[in-house]
C-alpha cells in the first residue's frame, strides 16, 4: 500500500519542532521535482544532484528557523529556492565556460535509461516510415508542423494523432517495463 503523505501544514509544524521524520517526508515529496527542474535547466546529472541537495538544505534550515510564514506556500517556497540554486549554479558554470558546451549537446542523455530505450524501440517498430519521419522531424529536427505536413503530404491533425498515439504507447510500455 502507498504511504499517505502528510499535509504540508503538518510537515512544516513537525520540522519546526525538530522532527527528522518530517524532514525525510518533505524531501521525498519534492526531491524528484527539484531534480527534474535542475536537470532540465542545467543538463548535468552532477549539477542536478548538487542542486537537489543544496535546495533541501536551505529549505529545511529555513523551516527550522520559522522563516516560512504560511505552510500552504511550501511548494512555491521549495520551487523558488530550487530556482535560486539553479541560477547560482548557472552563473558559476558560465564562469567555467561549460554552459556553451552543454547547450551544444544534441541529445538528452539525462532522461534516457534502459527502459526508455527499450520502450522507444518497441514504439518505433510499430510506426510506419512516414510516422517515424514525422517524429524525427518534429522532435529532433524541430521543424514546424505545417512544413512537416507539407513535406510528408499529411494533414496537421493527422500529425497530432500520430504523436499522441505514439506517446500513449510509450507510456504504457515504459510503466510496464519499470514495474517488471
Amino acid at each position: 500500500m502507498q504511504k499517505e503523505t502528510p499535509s504540508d501544514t503538518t510537515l512544516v509544524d513537525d520540522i519546526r519542532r525538530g522532527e527528522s521524520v518530517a524532514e525525510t517526508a518533505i524531501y521525498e515529496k519534492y526531491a524528484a521535482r527539484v531534480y527534474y527542474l535542475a536537470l532540465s535547466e542545467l543538463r548535468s546529472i552532477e549539477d542536478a544532484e548538487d542542486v537537489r541537495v543544496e535546495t533541501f538544505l536551505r529549505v529545511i534550515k529555513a523551516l527550522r528557523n520559522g522563516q516560512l510564514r504560511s505552510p500552504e506556500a511550501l511548494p512555491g517556497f521549495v520551487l523558488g529556492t530550487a530556482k535560486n540554486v539553479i541560477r547560482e549554479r548557472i552563473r558559476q558554470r558560465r564562469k567555467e565556460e561549460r554552459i556553451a558546451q552543454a547547450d551544444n549537446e544534441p541529445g538528452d542523455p539525462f532522461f534516457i535509461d534502459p527502459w526508455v530505450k527499450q520502450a522507444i524501440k518497441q514504439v518505433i517498430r510499430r510506426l510506419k516510415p512516414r510516422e517515424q519521419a514525422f517524429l524525427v522531424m518534429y522532435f529532433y529536427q524541430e521543424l514546424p508542423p505545417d512544413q512537416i505536413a507539407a513535406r510528408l503530404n499529411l494533414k496537421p491533425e493527422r500529425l497530432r494523432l500520430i504523436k499522441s498515439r505514439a506517446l500513449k504507447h510509450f507510456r504504457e510500455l515504459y510503466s510496464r517495463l519499470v514495474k517488471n
Partner: protein
Amino acid sequence: MKHSQIEDQQIVERYIRNQLNDDQRSEFQAHFFVCDECFTNLQTMERFIAGIRDGAESGLMSADLTKPGLLPFWNRWFKPAFAITAIATLVLTAVVAWLMLVRLPDLRNQLTLERQAREDLEITKQREIDELNNRLTKREVPNGQSESGGTTLQSKPDEVSEVNRKPSPELIARNVPIVALASTRSGEDANQIKLSPNSSHFACWIEVGPGLDSDSFQVEAFNESGALIALLREIKKNRKGAVIATFSAQKFSSGDYRIRLYGLPKSDRSLIGEYKLHVDK
C-alpha cells in the same frame, strides 16, 4: 493553470521544448510542483522526446523521408490516381462481363420467346381466316337460289344474290375487319366497326354458345329504315362456338344497322339474338 488549459495548449510539450514565455514557464513550474499528475506527464513526455531524439541520432528511426523532396511521387499523387483508375477498370470489367455473360443471353432468350409467341399468334389468326374462307367457299350456290328453301326474301333480291357469290379474292386476304357482336340493352352504345375505304368485306363474330340446338344459322342485316340489305344462310359454328358472318362492305355506308341471328333447326327458324351495329366508313 488548469488541467484543461495544459492539455489544450500542449503546455507540457511546449515546456520541454522551451516554447513557453517566462511567465507561462513559471506558472507551469508552480503547477507541477503541487500536481502529481502533471509532473508524471511531464516526466513521461521528457523521456519520450529524449527517446525519440536518441533513436533519431542512433539511426534507429527511418530518416529516409525527412529530407525535402524525398517523398516518392508515388505517395504524392500517382498511387491514389492509379488506385482510382484500377478500381474504375475493375468496375467497368465487371459490368461488361455481367452484360456479356448474363444480361445478353437473357435478352436473347426473351427475344426468342417473344418471336415464338408472335409466330404462334399469326398461325392462329391464319387458321381462323382459312377456316372462314373455307366456309365461304363451301357456301357457293347459284345466284338467287335459296339453299334451305324455307326463307323467301321480301325485298332487294339482288342484294341477297351477293351473299351467294363466290368470295372475292380480297376476302381471302388476311386483313378482313371483324367486329364481335354483343347484345346491347336500350340506351347502350351499339357495337362499332370502322371500315377503311379499301375494305371489301367485313366479318361479324357472334358468340352463340354450346347450348343451342341448331345445326346452322342465318344472319340478316337491316338498315336504319328496317330494310333487309344482306342475308347469310347455312352458317356453321366454328370450333370456338361462334358464328362468323361476312358481309360485303359496299352495301354498308356509315350508319346504324341491326343484325339478327336465327337458328335453323330442321323444322323452322328461331330468332337467337338481335345486335346493334354502327358502321363507320
